């Protein structure tokens, strides 16, 4: 039984490691994210072509894979080729500035839900720590 539990935990970590690559943007609306990302690429002078699942960056010979969940206010960015991680970091650095320029356009779904989850977890932690 113990071996099965350890194997399950290892598999969960491997799946999480494979899934969570690149950068995650939390509390963003679909419109603000798209506008910010395209403006960032324009500012960096990177030519792009919109394609299914991402932006084709012909100069780099790579695809900036984009996943947006507008209904919850999150997005994920990653380069198809891991070796181009440096280019992704340049894009994200500019994107952060773009997103910070216009406050009040954030989606509040994640901040509110994370707040509730954080408070509940804190209550559970205190409950366990005090051995109630």
């Amino acid at each position, binding site marked *: 039984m*113990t071996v099965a539990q350890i194997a399950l935990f290892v598999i*969960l970590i491997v799946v999480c490691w494979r899934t*969570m690559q690149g950068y995650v943007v939390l509390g963003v609306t679909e419109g603000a994210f798209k506008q910010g990302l395209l403006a960032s690429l324009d500012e960096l002078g990177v030519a792009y072509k919109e394609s299914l699942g991402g932006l084709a960056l012909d100069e780099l010979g790579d695809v900036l894979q984009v996943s947006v969940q507008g209904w919850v206010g999150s997005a994920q960015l990653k380069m198809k080729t891991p070796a181009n991680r440096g280019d992704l970091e340049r894009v994200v650095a500019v994107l952060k500035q773009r997103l910070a320029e216009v406050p009040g356009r954030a989606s509040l779904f*994640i*901040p509110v839900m*994370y*707040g509730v989850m954080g408070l509940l*977890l804190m209550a559970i932690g205190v409950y366990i*720590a005090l*051995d109630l």
Partner: protein
Amino acid sequence: MLSDAVFNALLVLPIGLMSVAFLFVSIRGLVTRRPIAVAARLFVWLFVVAVASMSVALISL
């Protein structure tokens, strides 16, 4: 077999860590009304710490 204190600590550690992370994102988002961009690997490490800590505690039962 772990003592109750160690067992509780192994459970409280990841819970506290996740609680602080959730509250940080929440308060920052609500106060600044700005999105936050973070490396996705941060979530993985948070998950690894939580899983490792809880698994040691649960397997010791």
